[in-house]
């Protein structure tokens, strides 16, 4: 996962109308979209909502000029766990349906019913779109802008400071991870090599992991001392300059929020 970090940040440094939007606008729209999708009841009209949200997502994606392939790969990388939950749900429905239509009978009396499949695909549609929105957010907004945006939206100063420190060192340890992995590879060590005893492989990996743990702990100690030298203390906080939203930001925010809030309400009333 950490190798993608550099790719994500590189994408986020791009330039497009979506990249130029204030981080606050993007944060609010993405959170609202995810909440709207999750809050919408699981019935047939969820596909209409998914279509509207999908259109919004697609238009933002096209505007942002994020390569579609990269976007789909990133979304695809997150899917397996959710899909396995959906699969279990189809095979063993948690709620009994009134008159199930059996499509397929598997050994051991497991039945696949049309109703369970329909429910799983409704949840699945919401799930994929939610991931899409989050991936779009992080592909078009720099980490530092996300943090200042969150701070301007009222995220506690103390927590923003901590997250900011963590974010900075993510890249340091990301590079360390790549170096360590390359060092293992130059010594022809492959943790999945079956010709080596399992215990040996786990011990080697454990030592590597432990070294990185200690290195990050010691980096933390050094950073802490350095911050003390510069006057860090109990009352330190992150200073973020106030910045009003531009007229363009307000327009985009209004249009997106109208879609995100209006669509579920109208669709639900119509259904």
């Amino acid at each position: 996962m950490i190798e993608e970090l550099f790719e994500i940040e590189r994408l986020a440094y791009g330039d497009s109308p979506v990249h130029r939007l204030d981080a606050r606008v993007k944060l609010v729209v993405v959170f609202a979209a995810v909440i709207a999708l999750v809050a919408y009841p699981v019935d047939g009209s969820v596909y209409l909502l998914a279509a509207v949200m999908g259109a919004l997502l697609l238009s933002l994606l096209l505007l942002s000029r994020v390569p579609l392939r990269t976007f789909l790969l990133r979304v695809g990388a997150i899917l397996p766990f959710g899909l396995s939950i959906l699969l279990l749900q189809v095979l063993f429905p948690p709620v009994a349906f009134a008159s199930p239509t059996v499509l397929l009978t598997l050994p051991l009396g497991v039945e696949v019913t049309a109703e369970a499949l329909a429910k799983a695909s409704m949840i699945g549609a919401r799930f994929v779109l939610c991931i899409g929105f989050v991936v779009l957010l992080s592909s078009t907004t720099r980490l530092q802008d996300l943090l200042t945006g969150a701070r301007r939206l009222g995220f506690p100063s103390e927590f923003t400071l901590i997250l900011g420190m963590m974010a900075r060192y993510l890249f340091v340890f990301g590079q360390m991870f790549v170096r360590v992995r390359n060092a293992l590879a130059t010594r022809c060590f492959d943790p999945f090599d079956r010709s080596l005893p399992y215990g040996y492989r786990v011990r080697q990996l454990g030592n590597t992991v432990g070294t990185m743990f200690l290195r990050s702990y010691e980096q933390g100690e050094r950073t802490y001392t350095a911050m003390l030298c510069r006057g860090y203390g109990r009352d330190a906080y992150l200073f973020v300059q106030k910045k009003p939203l531009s007229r363009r930001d307000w327009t985009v925010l209004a249009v997106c929020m109208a879609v995100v809030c209006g669509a579920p309400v109208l669709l639900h009333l119509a259904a």
Partner: protein
Amino acid sequence: MHIPDSFIPIPQAAVYWLIALVFIALALRWVRREMSEEKVPLVAVLAAGVFALQAFNIPVMMGTSGHLLGAALVAIVLGSPFAAVFVLSLVLIVQGVLFGDGGLTTMGANIINMGVIGGFVGYYGYHGLLSLTKSRFASAAGAAWLACIIPALAAALELTAAGTFPLVPGLVGMGVYHALIGVVEAAITAVVLGLIVSARPDILERAEGAPI
């Protein structure tokens, strides 16, 4: 076991978020009060390190692979379950917002499972087993295994309560899978602890309040 969005309805997700926020506040208070001085930056940097550690793919069995979660390790090494709550919450926020791994609405539930349950099970499991077996490494391994499987079972229960997961097959599926992954978590935690004991015993001494 990062529960994604849309698997837990909003009202339940809100309850999990509230509980998670209480624990995050308690963890913040712990960092300020217990860690001798204002060592917030140290824990923040360590969280970035734990995020990187989770990237190591570790072979499990039959071609599958797992990765370290680290809740038990952090709780044992820093000497408090709240350390795990703090570090894992930071890691989960980054994973959720940057990568979409683990949903935004379900982040509260994920923080409860991996940070709170993982941290408390890891910490108290370690000290409970330590008083029984007297072996530091065996108890760390046992605690790490428990801190892998119990959060997974909790996640299965939460999904069942949300109506999106069958109870028995879900518990069996999540349980068996994480019992296997847990073996790796246990082995790696024990090896890492061994390394820390030989390289930086002072960290553990402060955590356990007794010389090694």
